[in-house]
């Protein structure tokens, strides 16, 4: 595949005035919704999905590129100015970002986050392009058994990295997979687990999962802790978002290191932005000449994690575009965006719709530039979004959720499914069950089922032959290693005595 030629074609698609406008609108919407406290990237994308319904696939995906990177970036503003960030990928940024804001350096923290996101996004998009094309080349040589193994690896690692108790993570994963299989079986036409309810025959859309678990569940959570809630501490932004020469100099190396760490971790299925920003923070603290500043407002502690958070977003798209396998909750929702247009991301899409795939990749570059152009001047506007009274904010989120759910299939019963998932999401959050594996299982369930059954046909029904193929065995071994890594990371956190790191909570991206 002539990568540069294809990319040029992608830019030709994306750079028409109309598509450029969609990219900018996408960035604005993604950032705006991403800034709102309590709304992570997966929910941002779910809520904004209906906005693209009226569009043709190409402009829709160009807009999605903008929404995706905007949503990833948006959380940083909240985590710097508010001491309780909504999304876990921003938890690490909040440690030093909020301290900087308290010292009156909010502008510098926001600037290093914005420029770092640009640097990381650009590096990651180059990596994404190379990585996805390489995977497409590899993908033609691997069969259903290997696909099956890669998905098991994704589930193993998202479960292992969830930071929750193992039985709880196992429940979330297995139940998510089971929910994913509800409805008509594509291979035999049999109805599975519908219990005679005809509305379940089409299955449970991942968007319903994201909106139910995150939006409705979040509102129930907020209501349940209403009495316990105190006024949140907030810092204000004084002056423009700008760094001093010294702060800029101190940011460059962390941006670079964060980008590399973020991209590599992002490519691994199951490891999301939260893990990568946490690793970047640990690295920065270790290599820093003034480690004692960490926790008290070190700019490196904002620059590195924010860069790695955004680079991971690019890395996450590698298995999605190259193999059609989502590795995180956020990319699980992205797959829903493809499915709405009857498309399946993966090697075939590169062949059949190069305009779309390369248009999306080009729009990611454009989104990065747009983020840089828009975010520093508009930071005052984003900060104003934090002034929306919380009750109105949550009421608005649920109204948009209802519109989003209804607009998928115009089916009132989908609202009932979302309500049930909201109750489940609330209970899981209250009793500390990880939610990301459930969402990922919902998407991977049908794919695992398909590839397992196809693989078993190839091996004449022998599970052992399936697992002993060199490719599958190697991938599954890698999965086991990935499950062990977080245990070591947690140990490392405990040894170095950092409570924030050791107790890094669940990953909900």
């Amino acid at each position, binding site marked *: 595949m002539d990568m540069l030629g294809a990319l040029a074609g992608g830019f030709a698609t994306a750079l028409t005035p109309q598509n450029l406008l969609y990219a900018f609108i996408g960035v604005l919407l993604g950032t705006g919704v991403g800034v709102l406290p309590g709304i992570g990237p997966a929910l941002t994308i779910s809520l904004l999905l209906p906005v693209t319904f009226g569009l043709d696939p190409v402009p829709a995906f160009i807009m999605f590129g903008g929404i995706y990177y905007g949503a990833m970036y948006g959380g940083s503003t909240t985590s710097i100015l508010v001491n309780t960030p909504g999304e876990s990928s921003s938890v690490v940024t909040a440690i030093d970002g909020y301290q900087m804001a308290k010292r009156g350096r909010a502008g510098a923290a926001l600037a290093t986050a914005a420029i770092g996101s640009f640097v990381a996004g650009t590096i990651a998009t180059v990596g994404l392009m190379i990585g996805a094309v390489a995977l497409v080349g590899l993908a033609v040589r691997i069969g259903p058994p290997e696909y099956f193994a890669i998905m098991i690896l994704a589930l193993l690692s998202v479960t292992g990295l969830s930071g929750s108790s193992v039985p709880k993570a196992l429940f979330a994963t297995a139940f998510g997979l089971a929910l994913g299989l509800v409805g008509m079986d594509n291979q035999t036409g049999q109805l599975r687990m519908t219990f005679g309810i005809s509305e379940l025959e089409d299955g449970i859309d991942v968007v319903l999962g994201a909106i139910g678990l995150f939006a409705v569940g979040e509102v129930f959570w907020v209501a349940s802790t209403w009495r316990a809630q105190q006024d949140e501490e907030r810092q204000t932004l004084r002056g423009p978002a700008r760094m001093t020469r010294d702060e800029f100099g101190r940011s460059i190396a962390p941006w670079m290191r964060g980008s590399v760490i973020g991209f590599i971790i992002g490519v691994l299925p199951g490891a999301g932005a939260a893990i990568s920003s946490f690793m970047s923070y640990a690295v920065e603290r270790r290599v820093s000449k003034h480690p004692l500043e960490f926790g008290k407002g070190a700019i490196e502690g904002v620059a590195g994690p924010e860069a790695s958070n955004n680079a991971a977003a690019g890395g996450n798209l590698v298995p999605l575009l190259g193999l059609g396998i989502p590795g995180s909750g956020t990319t699980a929702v992205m797959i829903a965006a493809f499915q709405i247009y009857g498309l399946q991301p993966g090697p075939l899409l590169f062949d059949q719709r190069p305009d779309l795939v390369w248009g999306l990749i080009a729009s990611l570059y454009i989104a990065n530039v747009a983020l840089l152009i828009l975010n520093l001047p508009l930071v005052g506007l984003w900060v104003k979004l934090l002034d929306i009274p919380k009750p109105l904010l949550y009421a608005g989120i649920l*109204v948009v959720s209802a519109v989003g759910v209804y607009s998928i299939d115009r089916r009132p019963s989908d609202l009932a499914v979302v309500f049930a998932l909201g109750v489940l999401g609330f209970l899981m959050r209250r009793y500390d069950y990880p939610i990301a594996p459930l969402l990922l299982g919902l998407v991977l369930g049908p794919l695992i089922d398909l590839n397992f059954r196809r693989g078993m046909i190839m091996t004449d029904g022998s599970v052992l032959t399936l697992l002993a193929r060199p490719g599958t065995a190697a991938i599954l071994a890698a999965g086991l290693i990935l499950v062990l890594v977080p245990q070591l990371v947690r140990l490392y956190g405990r040894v170095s005595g950092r409570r924030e790191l050791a107790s890094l909570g669940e990953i909900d991206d």
Partner: protein
Amino acid sequence: MTLRHPDAIGGLAVVALGVVVLAGALTTPDVQFGVVGPAVLPSVFGILVVLSGLWLTAVSLQADPPVSEALDARHLTLAVIAVALYFAAFVPLGFIVSSVAFFFGLSWILGSRAVLRDAVASVGFVLALYVLFERLLTVDLPGGVLPL
């Protein structure tokens, strides 16, 4: 040995969910197509859910119950009822009427008492969404009781 730990009850609830999954899986007609029928993986997942629930309960029996955070049952109940009513009324009453009522109601439940502001905000927000989706994005929202 008591079920003082919330995870003990949670584990039993998980077992119940797993049994539901298994019931759904085992009642799937297992037509012969290929080597693995449609009921196999659902059964595997159902068994995993049951096992995870048993595991959770077993672990929790040996653990001390955690200090549970205060649960504001009144506000939670009100919010759950509000969302249930909203979703039930979304089509019959239509998007605009149900959403304005819900927006205002949930804001009140969540503690906002700026009645005039909230009324203006709910009408304004819902109408703006209506124009955006119905007119600009051609997403057909339910009209309900309003002659739209």
